[in-house]
């Protein structure tokens, strides 16, 4: 119950922030991105950290979420929550499909297959006039702001709720029989199978949940930017972020991706405001390589070691 208490307090705090006057709009604009990465990192970790299947195709799921939202918005003027739900469902379906791939493919083959999914989907979207194709689509935000002062503030709070929700799901997966099964798969899939773990079923569940959460992270993006176009939505840099943040934070526990995402995404936003865009990728890339080589357990592992040594 401690988790429920702390997360509710956090949400209340963020809600208070969003309705407070006098706070610069940019805080919410940047904060949205940080929260989005909390969701992405947590989602990636469910499959990558717990099960050991490295998904490079993160942008595909984000894009499915975003473009589903666009279609729902354009066709039936669906409200934000319906867009998010739709995005999550379809991205989850993609996750299921990708999960079926794991039947035949391991290790790097699985990862390369996920990259293939990104490019194939991107090409399809590029040729789809209705959502703007390669040119992109300008979108007008609806006037409905609930009780917030601006649309960005509302999106910020919505994303905060989604972040807490995804972490709660990851926590549940981790502590349940699903989590144990996934860890068994990561350590040795054959051994797990031999000892009776229903490996296919839990892999499929993990893929679906992971994909759905990434879709949920992507769904608010068209409204966030009032614009959508394929090349930035399908940007492969999302993969390096979504995999770097959990690895840097620590993949074995749900708090790892949260730490990684909050630290790195905040750093990135500060860097973007003051210096340049490229440095974002460089920071994550270099830190990723450093951690992978020196501290494979991530920040969590470093904390553990420090605690042990100071006893």
């Amino acid at each position, binding site marked *: 119950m401690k988790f429920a208490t702390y997360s509710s307090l956090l949400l209340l705090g963020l809600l208070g922030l969003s309705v407070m006057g006098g706070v610069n709009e940019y805080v919410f604009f940047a904060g949205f991105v940080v929260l989005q990465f909390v969701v992405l990192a947590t989602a990636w970790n469910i499959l990558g950290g717990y099960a050991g299947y490295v998904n490079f195709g993160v942008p595909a799921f984000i894009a499915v979420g975003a473009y589903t939202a666009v279609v729902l918005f354009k066709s039936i003027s669906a409200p934000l929550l319906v867009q998010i739900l739709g995005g999550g469902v379809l991205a989850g379906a993609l996750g299921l499909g990708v999960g079926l791939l794991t039947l035949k493919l391991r290790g790097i083959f699985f990862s390369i297959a996920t990259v293939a999914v990104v490019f*194939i989907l991107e090409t399809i979207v590029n040729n789809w006039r209705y959502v703007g194709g390669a040119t992109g689509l300008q979108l007008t935000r609806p006037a409905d702001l609930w009780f917030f002062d601006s649309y960005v503030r509302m999106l910020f709070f919505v994303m905060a709720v989604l972040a807490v929700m995804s972490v709660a799901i990851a926590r549940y997966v981790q502590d349940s029989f699903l989590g144990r099964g996934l860890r068994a798969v990561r350590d040795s899939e054959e051994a797990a199978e031999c000892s009776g773990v229903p490996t296919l079923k839990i892999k499929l569940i993990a893929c679906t949940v992971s994909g759905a959460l990434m879709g949920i992270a992507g769904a608010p993006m068209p409204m966030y930017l009032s614009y959508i176009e394929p090349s930035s939505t399908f940007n492969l840099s999302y993969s390096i972020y979504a*995999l770097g943040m959990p690895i840097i934070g620590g993949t074995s526990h749900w708090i790892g991706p949260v730490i990684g995402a909050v630290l790195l995404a905040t750093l990135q936003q500060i860097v973007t405001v003051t210096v340049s865009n490229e440095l974002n990728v460089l920071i994550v890339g270099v830190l990723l390589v450093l951690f992978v080589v020196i501290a494979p357990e991530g920040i969590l592992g470093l904390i553990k070691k420090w605690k042990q040594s100071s006893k």
Partner: protein
Amino acid sequence: MFSVDLIFEATLFGILLGCFYAAVSLGLSVAFGLLDVPYVAHPALLILGSYFTYLLCKTGIDPVVCGVLLMPIFYVIGIGFYRFYHETFEKRSTDTGVRGLAFFFGMAFIIEVCLILVFGVDQRTVAASYIGSSLEIGDYRFPYRMLVAFGIALTLTFVLTIYFSKTFTGRAIKAVGQDEGALRLMGANPVRIKQIAFGIATSVNAIAGAMLIIVGPVEPAMDRIYIGRTFCVVVLAGLGSMSGTLVAGLVLGITESIVMMTFGASWAPAVSFGLLLLMLGVRPQGLFGR
């Protein structure tokens, strides 16, 4: 609307293109196909080769010669990479899958971003006497830059195939992928052999990078589409097959060329990745794999 003429010309162009794709994938064929190293950074090194060629070319040297001159440097880079990978990942066997992949993926992005920081996002090209004109045979036109790339590709494939089948080190490289223990018994040090192989794979990237910038303009983000093309060729060929790489390259090149002509260039990226996915789903060991 699609005359036999056009399709024939597209096929011929596809052959030129295919050999080019095969040549840029040869390095990956060795590193990943033979040695099982998850060398996702290969396309990024390819682009790096192109940029180095661009720099050297400014001194007036012909781009092909530049590529050849860069090979020893890339050989050393390759050895360095492998030694690092071996020390850090292969030796400590736990969890190498995720970490090794993450390492190379991270390196690929670091290389790409450094290129952007140093050179900017602008496209770069090189100039040479054979770039810009074509060979006219009847009503057909074959750009000389493609013919040059074609020539280099064939030479490279030929040289590598001979090397791997006729020399001791070459055969040892082929063997180390199959049975390391047996190789050790034969008196060769597998780690040293793998190192040499990786060095060769990376040095091929130097000349392949030169070919890339001869064939067209290069920009830092190109490594992403080439992940699809090179892995498609390697997987299609089947791990461990050199001559298979050439055939696979031709399949990809011709398919891409014909798709570009019939459906339009917007579908070109999907061809390599689509073929890759298809192959992985249906026959992961490739056309000629072991």
